């Protein structure tokens, strides 16, 4: 059995800042595994431990996703090997484009029985890639997954849904997006991290994958910061409640609020 975990190496938006023109300055944001991807790795790792499956990490994206640091960070979490596609042209890639590249990587690996992803990426948080990826592969997509057991071709998938729980049985390969709290990610120990550098890493060339061009291209054409309302900073400084109320009413009328 082969289980692929599609993970994202990106930057933490909490460490980014917005420039006056609305673009985001990521330069001071530390790169790392997207917040919920360690959850996906842990869910997949537990299934792999039960079934003896090979656990393969896959990531595609901008320069940096294939660096030794990025690969070791993912491998230290328990993956057996990783496959990366690192290409500057993917810096501003949309969800469909990334999913199309991921699908080609999964076809390249071959005989994959299951793809597991995190709930959403910490930088974009669109929750789209797993579904689009499943569409590219022609497989079912299941979101909000809390558990997965069974073996290749006989998977039992648990979901938390509004009002209760759902159990699905899936007979073929599938793409599962784990819920944010599906498993407690295990912090890698020192031995895990030191062994990560000895595990296999395969870097694929984007051009060689021959990804089909997208029918529709999404381009960001405008950015702006939220409008900031200027506060008047007007203070009603009186101990007399009646006078305070009068002053407030006057001020609100003058401002056109009443």
């Amino acid at each position: 059995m082969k289980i692929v975990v599609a993970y994202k190496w990106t930057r933490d938006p909490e460490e980014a800042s917005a420039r006056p023109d609305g673009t985001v300055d990521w330069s001071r944001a530390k790169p790392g595994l997207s917040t919920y991807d360690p959850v996906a790795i842990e869910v997949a790792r537990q299934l792999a431990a039960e079934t003896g499956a090979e656990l393969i990490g896959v990531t595609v994206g901008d320069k940096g996703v294939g660096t030794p640091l990025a690969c070791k960070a993912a491998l230290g979490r328990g993956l057996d090997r990783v496959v990366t596609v690192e290409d500057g042209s993917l810096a501003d890639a949309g969800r469909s484009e990334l999913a199309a590249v991921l699908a080609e990587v999964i076809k390249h690996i071959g005989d994959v029985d299951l793809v597991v992803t995190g709930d959403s990426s910490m930088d974009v948080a669109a929750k789209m890639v797993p579904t689009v990826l499943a569409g590219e592969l022609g497989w079912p997509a299941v979101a909000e997954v809390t558990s997965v057991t069974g073996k290749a071709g006989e998977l039992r998938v648990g979901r938390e849904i509004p009002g209760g729980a759902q159990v699905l049985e899936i007979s073929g390969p599938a793409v599962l997006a784990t819920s944010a709290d599906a498993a407690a990610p295990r912090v890698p120990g020192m031995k895990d991290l030191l062994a990560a550098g000895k595990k296999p890493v395969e870097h694929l060339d984007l051009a060689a994958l021959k990804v089909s061009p997208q029918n529709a291209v999404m381009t960001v054409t405008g950015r702006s910061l939220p409008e900031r309302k200027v506060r008047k900073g007007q203070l009603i400084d009186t101990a007399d409640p009646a006078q305070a109320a009068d002053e407030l009413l006057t001020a609100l009328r003058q401002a056109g609020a009443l």
Partner: protein
Amino acid sequence: MDFELTDEQQLIRDAVREFAESEIVPVAAEIDRDHRFPAELLPKLAEMNLMGMTFPEKEGGAGADYVSYVIAVEEVSRACASTGIIMSSHNSLATWPVYKFGTRAQKDRYMHDMASGRRLGAFALTEPAAGTDAAAGTTTAVRTGDGYVLNGSKMFISNAPHAEVYIVFAKTDPDRGTRGISAFIVEGDTPGFAVGEAEHKMGIRGSSTPPLYFTDMRIPKEALLGEEGEGFKIAMATLDGGRIGVSAQALGIAQAALEAGVDYAKERVQFGKPIANLQAIQWMIADSALQVDAARLLVYRAAACVAAGRPYSTEGAMAKLFASETATRVADRAIQIHGGYGYTEAYPVERHYRDAKITELYEGTSEVQRMVIARSALR
């Protein structure tokens, strides 16, 4: 010269920080308040392979480099200085001398259990009348036919009584001064071995430091670590490394205090704006940030010397002296930034302040570090 950490060192920092924030931070204030040794953390530290970081995997360790080790001590201490010294004293003071000076038989008996964290270790050198003057100890080890009989006492022994393995120093030849001291590996369940009541300390209250008493305690000759008369040399060599562990502990305390001061300065509003906008506060933060960074460079430099197999006695003394005095100053400033709130248990800075002071005292006082540095400079 490259100031970048390796991939592994960066990942170890991230992992230990994640571990410390999820497992250690939640209990740090409570174990301090209750003077409680956090025994429940020992299996978790062991699972993270933090209890034998630098020892080879075949000896039960993680096989990490020494810089990674000080980063781990720094991160654990940033969360809780008590847990930092529990880990550091086990690694540097108890396990290291077994690895460095032990016979193959002694390593086979102890290394795997100690380096994997299954058995906790302690280092017993200090006595009521022998602190900095370590050679003034009065504990004796008298040779018998098949071993030794120990009598005497030790005090301020970190990790006792939770430790199972103790490196004990005793005089085998009282007339030979430092050359009459020998080191022994003593198991905590040996008849004649007793542990006194734990000290009530100003800081690092989660770290247990009771006295030990030896009364006609018989140990086999196989318990001798190194040769007879080598104890003082073993103690000093062990403390050279231990100091780097304490310097990393001090660095972690200083970093925690710096971050607490910065966070509070951004949040606390006085005169209609965050106090971080006030130059008086900015100067305090600037001095603290500068000193923490300088301390980090000294600590990592000392660790890099160990990793490279170069001499590190002076470098370790410099790192320990500067990092410990930095921890005290930065924690002091952090309280000043907090104002009256900083003097209460509502904020962690008063704990950082109390924890910081010990780093100027144990594993060689600041005066001893200055002596070591001066000897090197005047050579």
